[in-house]
């Protein structure tokens, strides 16, 4: 096994070569904030909240940066704290996140992250974009107002369920999650109604239809349990 030794926040550790800095830090007992990362899904570095300072380069996304021999990593500096708060503020500013009336209020990773990064108010003005809600699916709904484009739904549907209903469509400020090459979700035959995308959504963007404030059904931790179970089934008898 190829291994490498590095220092994260002055803690020395040795990990398998190729291990991401996010997982390496976790082994050292350091939890780096992230929103798009979910164990079991391919990391994409979409949210940038896991930025860390590496001595050989500028801030890098820990979820998509492999540990390397002799690397010195800092996960919590004034610069990183400022970047993280600014990133969360931009997420709030960019969408329409009204926690008070959101079905995910009290059980939302974005809300929790805002508290964690010390966002006691938003220094940026809201853009208040005009976005739609898709309730065409018989079981689930998608509220684009609350989507932070973490792409967990895209990845879980493609990599775990194998249905590949979701993609990211359009560009720039028009960028949004699309179902079946931009059809109403309910019109997409490939959707197996498994609900994994709803389970892994970090906000209230994907939800069970009919749910009201406080009904949020998101359980991202179930994905890891599901994958462990599958590995057991696929392993030797």
């Amino acid at each position, binding site marked *: 096994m190829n291994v490498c030794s590095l220092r994260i926040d002055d803690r020395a550790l040795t990990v398998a070569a190729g291990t991401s800095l996010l997982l390496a830090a976790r082994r050292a007992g350091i939890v780096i904030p992230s929103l798009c990362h979910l164990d079991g899904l391919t990391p994409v570095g979409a949210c940038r909240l896991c930025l860390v300072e590496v001595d050989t380069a500028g801030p890098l996304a820990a979820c998509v940066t492999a540990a390397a021999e002799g690397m010195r990593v800092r996960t919590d500096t004034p610069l990183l704290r400022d970047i993280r708060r600014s990133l969360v503020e931009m997420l709030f500013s960019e969408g329409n996140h009204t926690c008070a*009336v959101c079905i995910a209020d009290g059980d939302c990773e974005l809300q929790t992250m805002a508290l964690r990064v010390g966002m006691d108010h938003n220094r940026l003005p809201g853009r208040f974009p005009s976005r*739609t809600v898709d309730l065409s699916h018989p079981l689930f*709904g998608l509220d684009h107002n609350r989507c932070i484009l973490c792409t967990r739904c895209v990845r879980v549907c493609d990599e775990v369920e194998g249905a590949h209903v979701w993609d990211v469509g359009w560009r720039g400020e028009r960028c949004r999650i699309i179902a079946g090459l931009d059809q109403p979700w309910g019109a997409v035959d490939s959707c197996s109604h498994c609900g994994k995308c709803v389970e892994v959504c970090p906000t209230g963007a994907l939800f069970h*239809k009919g*749910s*009201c*404030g406080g009904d949020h059904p998101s359980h991202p931790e179930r994905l890891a349990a599901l994958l462990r179970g599958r590995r057991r089934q696929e392993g030797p008898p």
Partner: protein
Amino acid sequence: MTDSPAPQRRITIDPLTRIEGHARITIDLDARGSVQRARLHVSEFRGFEAFCVGRPFTEMAAITARICGICPVSHLLTAAATGDRILAVTIPPAAERLRRLMNLAQILQSHALSFFHLSSPDLLLGWDSDPERRNLFGLIAADPELARAGIGLRQFGQELIAALGGRRIHPAWAVPGGVRSALNGEQRQGIRAGLPQAFASVELGLALFKRLLDERLREELAVFGDFASPFLALVDATGQWEHYGGSLGVAGCGGGIRVMASDGSLLADGLDGTAMETLLAEAVEPWSYLKFPYLRALGPEAGSYRVGPLARLNLCRRIGSPRADRELLELRQRGGRVVTASFLYHLARLIEMLACLEQIERLLDDPLITSTQLRAHAGVNAREGVAVNEAPRGTLFHHYRVDGDGLIEAVNLIIATGQNNAAMNRTITQIARHYLGRGQLSEGLLNRIEAGIRCFDPCLSCSTHAAGMMPLLVQLRGADGALLDEQRRD
């Protein structure tokens, strides 16, 4: 609401204090110094009817509860009941009882705020007392027992709301199809334990107010908005006092919206919320964001009606609980079978507090109140829903239209305060004419005019909603001031 000639002198009361929301009053005087007209200008604007469009109807309870921090429960329950219509379900019996329980707690705490905190400083300390002391703190200094009673009643109501919904303000608890959680035995005991003190507090307020009515508030009965007008409220299937209309339109429920003229003749009876558009129309005036609902059949002047505690007590045959019914009888002895004196809204509020406590006590004894079968699940089975409930300040209508997926296409909210708009304007005009006619303008006199509004306990933050329908009046005048052309958008 016809326009009169330009006033010679205008008196403005701005801001209007000890009400919920923002408003000002103008009193226009003619060349001889007589009161030409008095107007309540509601100067805030909300816009819920516009920005709810496009949202799932299931979110309406959480969103519309945010209209108000004083009576969020009224909107919460009415939005949930409108959702019941869209699901086309009958909610479980326990859910209806629990919704009733929360509405009673809401009416109780809101009435306690109105009478004890906002109005009793005037009643107890006097209209002309020092404005520095004529407030809740002055009341605490002058009569700590009364102040404590008001605070305790609000606490009782708010804690009951919190026991049911998990929080005092904006509980996301009532949902289309029922309610989210049950009341447990321990909570039931806790509420029951607070009842004796709550009854004593209401009795204290009642005794005080009736004594003041007998001693030094006699003139106010005739001057603070005493006029003939229709009244509108809910009654139950047997004509008794009713506050929850969530089941109206459901087969076998009975009861409904009743409208009565001040001579006691019935103008409408047994209607459910779907009659709203036939029964009511809304006028707009360029000088206020608050619309003027009226009875369509009678027109904007004769059809202006009153809602709220006095309307509910006027329209019911009886309340249906012994202590409140005794007080209702006494109210009718004071003011007649249909009480037209708006000053007696205060007494009606106190009587309703008693009724709320008696009904809370009765509901707590109901074995179904701790049932856990609380929610009916269904999809969109109707594209339109209307629900009507009694909010503390009067009858509240929510009307939604949705698309096939359940996204809101149109919202119309008719709020109690709006329905009392014309009556509030008549009241302040009556007060201004009576007191200003006597000569010198004084602070105490202006306070009486403000107090005329407080009789109705308006909640202005609840009441201004429509967007895209802003009243607008553009006048083209020549150099001599003559009106050449006029464009009005209502």
